[in-house]
């Protein structure tokens, strides 16, 4: 469904007139910017070096960062879940969990330990919100990972509820090592490339760097405000 646009003509006409032209240009080309420092930052680093940058940044944003092989992922994740006092857990619905060998953990190991786990399911509609609001842990996957700022990039879709990363008290984000790029610059380029190939932009793209926090009371940092209070990144060595 196409939305509505109101009051545009007079509003824009006023702007064109202030810019001393009679009408809006039919096309504006973005200039070649004189300086492009964003591409120079952290350039030419190997994937291992970028991982090092990411790990260091995590220590500055109150985020626990664990590196594991694909083979050990299930064990590592289980340990973190237990450290976080177990369920209820809410995860995205995502085939990659199976690819990473987590099927047995999710459908067998955790239930046997009486750890409740739910998967986001668009067919049950609003009940997802009830479940995710009660969840102790939310588990999601980073599509693009930014080394410089220690950032996970999450794209929403019907199987990827946005609230899975906001509402639970603790957040675990899986990050394939192959998804690490130097900084937000490369993510912006990748997103535009995908759009140019005809992909639709997710209604919510989230760049998340550590747990929610605030220093609004006497400039004293408090970790855990509206979003998660604790956060763990699990880097999966998929290279």
């Amino acid at each position, binding site marked *: 469904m196409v*939305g*509505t*646009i*109101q*009051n*545009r003509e007079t*509003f*824009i006409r*006023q*702007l064109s007139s*202030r*810019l*001393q032209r009679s009408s*809006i*240009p039919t096309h*504006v080309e*973005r*200039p070649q910017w*004189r*300086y492009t*420092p*964003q591409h120079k930052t952290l350039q030419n680093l190997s994937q291992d070096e970028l991982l090092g940058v990411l790990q260091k940044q995590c220590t500055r944003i109150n985020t626990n960062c664990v590196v594991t092989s694909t083979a050990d992922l299930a064990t590592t994740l289980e340990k973190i879940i237990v450290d976080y006092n177990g369920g209820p857990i809410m995860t995205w619905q995502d085939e990659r969990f199976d690819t990473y060998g987590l099927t047995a953990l999710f459908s067998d190991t955790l239930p046997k330990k009486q750890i409740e786990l739910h998967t*986001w399911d*668009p067919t049950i*509609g609003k009940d*997802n*919100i009830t479940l995710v609001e009660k969840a102790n842990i939310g588990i999601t996957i980073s599509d693009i990972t930014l080394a*410089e*700022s220690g*950032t996970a990039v999450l794209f929403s*879709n*019907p199987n990827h509820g*946005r*609230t899975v990363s*906001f509402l639970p008290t603790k957040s675990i984000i899986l990050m394939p090592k192959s998804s690490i790029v130097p900084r*937000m*610059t490369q993510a*912006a380029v990748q997103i*535009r490339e995908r759009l140019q190939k005809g992909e639709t*932009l997710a*209604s*919510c*793209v*989230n*760049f*998340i*760097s550590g*747990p*929610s*926090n*605030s*220093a*609004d*009371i*006497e*400039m004293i940092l408090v970790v*855990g*405000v*509206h*979003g998660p209070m604790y956060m763990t990144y699990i880097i999966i060595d998929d290279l």
Partner: protein
Amino acid sequence: MPMKVGNESFNNRVGEGIQNTFMRSAVSGAQDRLETNRQLATEELGNWEEWRSLGEEIRQHVLANLDYYLTQLSEQVAARGGHVFFAATAEEAQVYIADVANKKQAKKIVKSKSMVTEEIDLNHYLEEHVGCRVIETDLGEYILQLDNDLPSHIVAPALHRKKEQVQESFQHHHQYEGTERPEELTKHARKMLRDDYLTADIGITGCNFAVAETGSVCIVTNEGNADLSTALPKTQITVMGMERLVPTFEELEVLVNMLTRSAVGQKLPSYVTVLSGPRQEGDVDGPEEFHLVIVDNGRSEILGSEFQAILQCIRCGACANICPVYRHVGGHSYGSIYSGPVGAVLSPLLGGYDEYKELPFASTLCGACTDVCPVKIPLHELLHKHRQTIVEKEGRAPVSERFLMSIFGIGSSSSGMYKFGSKVASSVLKPLTKNDQLSKGIGPLKNWTDIREFPAPKKERFRDWFENRQKGDD
């Protein structure tokens, strides 16, 4: 004036600011910390001047093509099923948003911090015309709203409040029984607000940057309040100042990074959220309906004028964090939601000289603001332009010369501005003085002090000295 805060005269506000010792130490502490963090975060990049040039170029390109990019933005939002309303005035924006709220029979609205909604006085209008509760969800704003208090800093609105005052306020309004520890106070706010997010009918946000190419709005927070305000209520209304946009994700990236480094010294905040239209088909969370309200409210008059550069502003507050005058008088003294050097330039443009003619004079023109501005707005030059306009064209501020003189400790006759100037001059310039000589000038003063030393303003005001001297003669 909607953007006006408080009813006190300029001199009374300054007097109160200077006498409030907690506020003054809170402001100077915050300034030191934020400015140090900013310096570290920008120096770390190694080529900050290149970044500033890029930031400036992007902002200038957008302003020069604002008609084109706003048209593109509105097309893209509509293509994704969102509704766009262009509001020439604050009133038009208020009426449209109230209309949406009335149609939704809204009882409760959650709102994430936004300067432009303060500027158009949205909360009061909605409470009056829709009869709904509007709840500020940014922790600082939430605290202020409980007691109808006013923000004093662009990024740290409750800077002037002590934790004990926050505790008292929670006790009074919520029967809070916890301690004054910030962790505990924050946890209380988390609990209260969680329920509000889940039961609100509408979420209202500001917009740090809109992206023309994709019809997106980008909101940055550390608390995650904008995310919850937009993920849970059925209707989202985003209000943006018309100049706050970029062509594509690539420029968004640059400016978001510069914003958070300049504001608080972070590489990125915890949440950079890019929202495009309402939820897509099949999505379970996110708003069913999305409205983007694009506000002019005096901005188009600035476009194409000698003050156009102020529209480059990305609201980082770095200029306030380094300003020696802001340090001593605090945010409330500006009498506007826009405080600090940017406020001293912008408030008279949006709110008129009648209300804000003193602000351009509440500056030492030291140029430190210009030096730190990530998008290279020549702030002190714009302040000087205001003074020229006020004196030459408006002919109503016979204080400029005297004020300037008084800042430098030369001056004679009595006036409110003179008292103000001499009241703050000595402490304002204190960090730069050595043996009563100004030896470490900043900004334009630097060129001067690099060659010779400037006599520092005396702690003893000329008038006091004169009175004492007269007494002596007696």
